[in-house]
């Protein structure tokens, strides 16, 4: 840890880290700590503030919309994370080749990842639209009625999940491809000597070698999908009847539309706690390099 080039501990050395630390403290640490304090207040945007203790948290647990939003968030994770991990793994296995076609397809599957959420939602709204949307046109062509995906309670969140999988599939695929590159060549040579078939090699050599990556991909995606916001805000506004309202959209609406800031910050703390658990899991898995 200590660098041999500077045994002299000096205050002037702080100057190198000071500019960043200033922003870190004012824009990250202070807002976090002030948030703890603010969550104990009934506060509005215009500065009116009254200490209420844990009342905001009690109110959250009795708020049907918030409890529903927590449920929606977990449901959304269930819809997206396994699909992202499994499809990403499948694509990585299929496209781990040195051919031009594989390179092109890798490029296609990652391309959507560079688009912004507002473009992605615009594209998928005209796919899902019941009136002249792409899916509706195909259904109508076969004589079937259109399905109003985004305004049907049971279909809104799954539709957002499909949009999200489409948007995010590039990252897990690339992470799995990187892991496949790391599998020692000797393992395959040994398997070939044993006359192990393709599926046997996949099952006994490839998959066990990338177990740790699989765990990391799942955790990374859980953390990412916990933060679902833009897709829901732009595609359904959380509706119909709050069926597609995730936690972050709840925080946004309470904090920036209703300006009930103490209440919104309290909801933010709960989200933070959940993400912290996932981040801790990521840290533990990432650290256990040797054990896997």
């Amino acid at each position, binding site marked *: 840890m200590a*660098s041999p080039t500077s045994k002299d501990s*000096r*205050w002037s*050395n702080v100057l*190198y880290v000071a*500019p*960043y*630390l200033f*922003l*870190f403290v*004012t*824009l*990250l640490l*202070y*807002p*976090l700590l002030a*948030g703890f304090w*603010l969550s104990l207040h009934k506060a509005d*945007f215009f500065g009116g503030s009254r200490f209420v203790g844990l009342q905001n948290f009690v109110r959250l647990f009795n708020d049907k919309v918030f409890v529903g939003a927590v449920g929606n968030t977990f449901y959304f994770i269930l819809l997206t994370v396994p699909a992202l991990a499994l*499809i990403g793994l499948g694509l990585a296995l299929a*496209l*781990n*080749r*040195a051919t031009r076609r*594989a390179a092109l*397809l890798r490029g*296609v*599957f*990652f391309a959507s990842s*560079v*688009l*912004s*959420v*507002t473009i992605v939602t*615009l*594209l998928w*709204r*005209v*796919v899902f639209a019941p009136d002249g949307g*792409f899916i509706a046109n195909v259904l109508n062509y076969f004589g079937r009625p259109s399905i109003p995906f985004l305004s049907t309670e049971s279909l809104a969140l799954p539709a957002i999940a499909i949009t999200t999988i489409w948007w995010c599939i*590039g*990252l897990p695929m*690339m992470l799995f*491809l990187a892991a496949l590159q790391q*599998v020692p060549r000797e393992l395959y040579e040994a398997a*070939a000597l044993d006359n192990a078939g*393709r599926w046997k*090699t*996949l099952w006994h050599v490839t998959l066990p070698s990338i177990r740790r990556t699989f765990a990391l991909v799942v955790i*990374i995606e859980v953390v990412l999908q916990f933060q679902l916001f*833009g897709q829901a805000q*732009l595609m359904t506004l959380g509706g119909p009847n709050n069926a597609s309202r995730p936690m972050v959209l709840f*925080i946004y609406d309470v*904090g*920036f539309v209703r300006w009930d800031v103490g209440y*919104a910050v309290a909801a*933010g703390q709960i*989200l*933070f706690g959940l993400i912290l658990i996932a981040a*801790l899991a990521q840290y533990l898995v990432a650290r256990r390099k040797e054990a896997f």
Partner: protein
Amino acid sequence: MAAYVASGAVGRGLGDRLILAATIALALVMVIPMVWAVGLSIKSNAELLVDTNSVLHAPWTLKNYADIIVGSSVFRWLLNSIIVSTGMSLGVLVLSSLAGYGFARLEFPGRNVIFVLVLFGLAIPEQAVIIVRHQLFSAFDLHNTYPGLMLPGMSAPFGVFLMTQYFRSIPTEIDEAALLDNASRFQVFWRVLLPMTLPAQATLGIYTFLHAWNDYWWPLVSGTNAQMYTMTVGIAATQINFAESAGLGYLMAQAVFGSLPVLIVYMFFQKYIVRAVSGAAM
């Protein structure tokens, strides 16, 4: 990209053909929404109102593109996005390089405690701080300004973490040799070590730029003046009133126009972008 090898024997059997068919089917799912949007963007709004299947046949038109170039604010949004993304990336590179060098090479009181604190910052999500941050920026009158849009991204600890790791991976003998030649500490940093960190700078720069370009929540609540919209927020603003907006073709032309800058950059720098994004995730 490193050489790809087949992860198993390559055959030409039925299994291979099924895998190829499935992969191409999925690739079509990836491409269809984009092609559909491009198709809608080159039809007149009046014709789309009657039937969107008209995309499949002539007449096609570039009028929607002419309309957004003349009559909309896309160029203003584009300019804002370029300023904010470039500024944020440069800021992150400068701050992270300085701090990374400081944490990796220099001793100062409390260094290790502070570094651990910064690492902890990696786990703080935007949602947990955005409301207080918003109040803070109101108090300092920073909303609807470029610094107001850039600064939050510069407080993220990821760059500092990455640069510290990178500086640590450079052998200290290099510093010692330069110090023996009577170079000052800052000269060692600036002339000797910094040029060696270019790969990390590229990763961090690309990642930050893309992140800033696509950032939605902060610019949505901070840059609320239409003159300060970034591309991402501007395109959101047009679709909020999706139904009663200027027309489907016009909206799609905006979406296509808005995605062109990143898609063009992606085509040329795909390798670096993929490396930056995957590197940042792990």
